């Protein structure tokens, strides 16, 4: 069993409530921070821990914190990004609904380190039922003196609010999230300035993912060096992986970074192998945006060694032969899966979610969806496959925010690794095996 930090107490009955959470050592990090540590020392510990942003980008959290501007007399904000919308990703939902206090504790400890007096948890609108759970946890934290005025008699004040979105993937991009929090459309801002300088209401702001914030209490309690020892090299700590698709045991797993991909897919501790005894065909390892890899390439590195569940190992081989850890949305496809049809669901998704600000993304995502639809319908041509390639290459790198890249990479990787499938749809559409999926369900 690997080390558990976030889900250590997941099995404890009543862990959703304050008393049980507190009895399991909850809120110790707030006490330690406020009573014994300076804000600077806390940022230093987070830097030492090697913790990287768990929302997908993997940017070092301590460094992000150290960029926060601190002009006199200007409020600073901490915003938790709970807009989890990357297809294949449901770890934040799991964590918030099971152990809401770990996020609340992380928000308080992190706010203290950043000198923040008002913090928000921005949660996607569809997670409405979790709003109730978080509001209850926050209420309990206020009632027990962890939030509000003069926390633990230190003179430190903090208010924490839950802000609800309303259905927009793009609001997971941090500047779009801030726009949305200001009551506007979720159009990403041009950077710089970065939120650390001009974020919410133009004030210095840190935006961190749920899992990132929830990792902070452990780091403060045990020290950055201790956290850095978990995992391998620059992939320090544990990671929540959302496993879905054709596996025996879909769900959220906390892994110590460094286990092999093969072990993650086939061991009983994690996914438990491919459903119905089928063979593995492909994996999208880090949420819909990252390149899809065929079975041999996800299990083995180009060198022949086993690929590991780390930021570095998953990206080994570059874009031609590797992928990314991303948000940890691990989608497994068995041998019956049509890569073309799966890609169509992604293309339709990105078309639906493009905010429309940049023309390469707005026009390109809709165009790619149309072409894929045409190919699936049996009316495609070989030239259409080249056109798809051309369009994705023109979107990548040419937009204000990373949604453009996120829409381009799945298309590029599907064509790169599975071109023969696209060609089969085009040259002999009647021979393409239209899979019925219902028989796979809940067997």
């Amino acid at each position, binding site marked *: 069993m690997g080390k558990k930090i976030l889900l250590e107490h997941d099995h404890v009955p009543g862990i959703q409530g304050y008393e049980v959470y507190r009895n399991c050592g909850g809120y110790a990090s707030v006490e330690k921070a406020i009573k014994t540590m300076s804000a600077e020392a806390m940022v230093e510990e987070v830097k030492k821990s090697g913790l990287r942003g768990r929302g997908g980008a993997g940017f070092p959290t301590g460094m992000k914190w150290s960029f926060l501007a601190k002009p006199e007399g200007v409020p600073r904000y901490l915003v938790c990004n709970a807009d989890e919308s990357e297809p294949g990703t*449901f770890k934040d939902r799991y964590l918030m609904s099971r152990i809401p206090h770990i996020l609340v504790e992380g928000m308080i400890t992190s706010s203290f380190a950043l000198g923040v007096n008002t913090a928000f948890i921005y949660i996607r609108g*569809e997670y409405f039922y979790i*709003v109730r759970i978080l509001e209850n946890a926050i209420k309990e934290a206020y009632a027990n003196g962890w*939030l509000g005025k003069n926390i633990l008699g230190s003179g430190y004040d903090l208010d924490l609010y839950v802000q*609800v979105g309303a259905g927009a993937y793009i609001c997971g991009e941090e500047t779009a999230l801030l726009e949305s929090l200001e*009551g506007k*459309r979720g159009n990403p801002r041009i950077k710089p300035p970065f939120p650390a300088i001009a974020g919410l209401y133009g004030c210095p702001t840190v935006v961190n993912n749920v899992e990132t914030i929830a990792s902070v209490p452990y780091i403060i309690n045990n020290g950055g060096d201790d956290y850095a020892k978990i995992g391998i090299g620059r992939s320090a700590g544990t990671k929540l992986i959302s496993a879905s698709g054709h596996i025996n045991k879909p769900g959220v797993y906390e892994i110590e970074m460094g286990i092999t991909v093969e072990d993650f897919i086939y061991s009983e501790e994690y996914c438990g192998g491919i459903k119905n005894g089928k063979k593995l065909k492909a994996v999208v390892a880090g949420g819909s945006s990252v390149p899809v890899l065929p079975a041999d390439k996800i299990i083995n590195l180009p060198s022949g060694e086993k690929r590991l569940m780390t930021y570095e190992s998953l990206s080994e081989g570059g874009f031609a032969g590797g992928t990314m850890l991303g948000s940890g949305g691990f989608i497994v496809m068995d041998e019956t899966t049509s890569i073309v*049809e*799966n890609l169509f669901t992604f293309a339709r998704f990105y078309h639906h979610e493009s905010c429309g600000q940049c023309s390469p993304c707005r026009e390109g995502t809709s165009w790619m969806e149309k072409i894929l639809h045409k190919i699936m319908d049996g009316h495609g041509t070989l030239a259409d496959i080249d056109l798809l390639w051309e369009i994705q290459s023109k979107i990548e790198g040419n937009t204000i925010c990373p949604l453009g890249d996120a829409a381009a990479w799945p298309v590029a990787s599907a064509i790169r690794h599975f071109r023969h499938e696209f060609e089969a749809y085009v040259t002999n559409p009647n021979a393409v095996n239209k899979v019925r999926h219902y028989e796979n369900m809940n067997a």
Partner: protein
Amino acid sequence: MEVKFNEEALAVAHKIIARYPEGKQKSALIPLLHLAQAEFNGWLSPETMAYVGSLLKIQAVEVYEVASFYSMFNLKPVGKCLIEVCRTSSCWLRGANEIIEHIEKKLGIKDGETTQDGMFSLKTVECLGSCGTAPMMMIGAQFHENLTYEKVDTILDSCKSEDKRKTYFDEVTVKDY
């Protein structure tokens, strides 16, 4: 019909507005639109949007600009029971298309339509973060997961007399800290 929150809803609205710093009240727009949608039959009419604008002292068009951006805001009337079925990759891999077809057949409506009695609306949506329990649908604020045809039948039959549009109001209620 005059659009106006009842006393209870208005109190919640004011509590939400009071969260934000002076001059930043527009931040309350999305929460208030959720509240309004729950209070006024599950959709945002031009009158409803104008009313929400008046509470925040902004123009109706500014409200529309935001309401039309977010997929959860319905700008047309919906049935008492809005069925939102996820169709993105992980759900598709585990049979979302078949679930959608089944619902369409059962209710005699297509994606985006409402039954004649105004009871059910069907809307296909993008990933709702329920990939490990796919296929899934959301009704009101409730997730229904690991769907089978039988499960869908049971859930829809049990919805027949309920108005699920208020569920959001229930969930959005702001606590006194």
